[in-house]
């Protein structure tokens, strides 16, 4: 739902002469599905952190819709992220000791926005991602199931953007495919902008636009099908 526009972005780390990420101009249309690829050290993770509002922007502007992340304080960025970004990560980051449902609701509860509607939505999402037992403790789930819970958590507050960082990297082939299906289907259903950083070619292939990063710069930007797998 949200379009992304990046202008003159430069991310430098102290002690490093060259910026780890330098993007003069990048636009991603609202509702599009984009893959971020590139080797380790290419600046992929940094870009994910920047567009998710996890990292402070010192140089340049990052607009999601009308909102310039560069202008937000850390606390405001947290707030904005909580409301607009659904994050799915390689390591799931589910919290042991809580049930699957509680895990889905945890960020909303910590932000004190969990109301009855949201709890209902959590139940609904739980079914959407294909799980059966909401009270099951997450520790007893398979990795594929865990990632489904993580996806349900990401979708809880109807985010305009879904950002997935290597969502299939720690899953076996079958689970990875299923998770890929789920992400694409859900993004299509909700109309959310989907950005997936991945090495997983099977997943990357299915996204409509691919950005290739190297040494902090975008060196390839092609629609699906034009790069041979």
């Amino acid at each position, binding site marked *: 739902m949200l379009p992304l526009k990046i202008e003159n972005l430069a991310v430098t780390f102290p002690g490093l002469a060259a910026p780890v990420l330098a993007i003069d101009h990048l636009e991603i249309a609202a509702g599009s599905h984009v893959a971020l690829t590139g080797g380790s050290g290419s600046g992929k993770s940094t870009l994910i*952190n920047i567009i998710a509002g996890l990292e*402070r922007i010192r140089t340049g502007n990052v607009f999601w819709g009308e909102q310039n992340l560069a202008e937000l304080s850390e606390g405001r960025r947290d707030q904005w*992220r*909580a409301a607009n970004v659904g994050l799915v990560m390689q390591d799931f*980051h589910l919290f*042991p*000791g809580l049930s699957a449902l*509680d895990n889905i609701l*945890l960020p909303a509860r910590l932000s004190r926005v969990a109301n009855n509607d949201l709890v209902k939505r959590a139940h609904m999402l739980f079914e959407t991602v294909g799980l059966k037992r909401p009270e099951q403790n997450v520790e007893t789930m398979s990795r594929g199931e865990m990632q489904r819970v993580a996806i349900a958590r990401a979708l809880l507050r109807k985010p305009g953007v879904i950002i997935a960082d290597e969502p299939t990297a720690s899953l076996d082939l079958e689970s990875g495919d299923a998770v890929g299906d789920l992400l694409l289907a859900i993004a299509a259903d909700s109309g959310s902008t989907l950005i997936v950083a991945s090495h997983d070619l099977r997943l990357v292939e299915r996204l409509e636009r691919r950005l290739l990063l190297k040494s902090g710069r975008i060196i390839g930007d092609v629609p699906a099908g034009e790069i041979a797998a």
Partner: protein
Amino acid sequence: MIRFILADLRRLWLGGAVVILLVALATALGVAVTLQERSLRLGSARAADKFDLVVGAAGSETQLILSSIFLQPAPLPLVDGSVLTKLAADPRVSWAAPVGFGDSFSGYPIIGTTTSLIKGTTTGFSEGKMFALEGEAVLGAAVDLSVGAEIKPMHGTAETGGHTHAGAAYKVVGKLQPTGTPWDRAILVPIQAVWHVHNLGHEHGQDEHGHEAGEHHDGDGHSHDHENEEGHEGDAHAEGEANHQEPAAQSASHAAPEQHAPKYPFALGAASSKHVEEEHHGSIDPDAPIIETFGSSTPGLPAILVKPKTIADAYRLRQEYRSGSTLGVFPGEVLTSLYAALGDAKMVLSAVAAGSQGLVAAALVLVTVIHVGQRRRQIGALRAFGAPRTSVFLIVWLELFLLVALGVGIGFLLGFAAAHVGSQMFTAKSGVILPVGFTREDLRLALILLGFAGGLAAVPALLAYRQSPAQALRA
């Protein structure tokens, strides 16, 4: 949030339990010291409460109070019997009662005294009645004997090599209501019975005693020689009389019929060893009525408990009896000086407790800082998924604070229990009831500890708060 914290604590229950235990023990140490010291003060003050003024022979004030009020066995110098006569007749005195120690039964001290003291210091009888005859005894509430029991007094105590008085026995006729003082552990008998058991104050000895009163400090050495020859109790004597110029003079046992006792730790209501020569076999006449008017023939006494009519009288009497051979003491003033020593001991113990609390606090900071470091990723993830920084701060803070608060709470209970057990042991031994209880001061201590815990918990919480989620996730 609470659910998250609880889930987290459940997962880390072992570490949490150790934290709680550490905090609880450190807290309990401090609390127990405070409570025990306070209960000692309160208990001893209450025990001494009923005794307004104690008059004894010149000597140690502390010893006089310990022996007469806390019934701790120790040889006391004797005050001349005439002092009691004078006090009893004094219009400022509501009652004055002699106390005579020295004998025991089953570990309970047998105290010779008068009905007026019993009436004046207790709330009445739980069963039975006051002694009326020389051979009758009244039990303190904590004495594990029943009315009707027969008591054969033992000289000294069994542990110190005492021996049983032949031919003397009391019959228990009453049991007193508890007073919370060491007197609860005492067997009270008529003072005249104690004198008679020890061959003092008999009619046939009276004249001689009176006659000797002026010079018996000179005759003492001779008496000793005699006794040594007789092989009865020469070594039992420190000094067989109350010397007017030397308050240190002590009197030990006199009536040691037949047997030879190595050392008598108790002071006795004895005036002169002369009596020993006259008669060795002391016995009481169980059916003789008790006489509580004390004439000039009254034997020397270790202590006289005095109830003055007014406070002003109390001060005047104390002043009057603080000169020369007598010593008037308010138990309170002796206790005050004892409390000063107690306070010093408490300060040392409190410092030790505070030190241990400091160590525990430092250890906790270390542990939690490491813990937060280990959980950087988790904390980063919480932030990344949209938990506000304040929530993250609160989670870390609450988690530690809950543990410490629980520890402090348990520590207070543990300290209370420890002080209670300590007090009960003390009560069993001494009869002094030590009231263990919390006061406002403890509330302040609890608040200080909790406040400190709050500050302590803020350290890792702040660390978590300041962590950048992106960096934390990268780690």
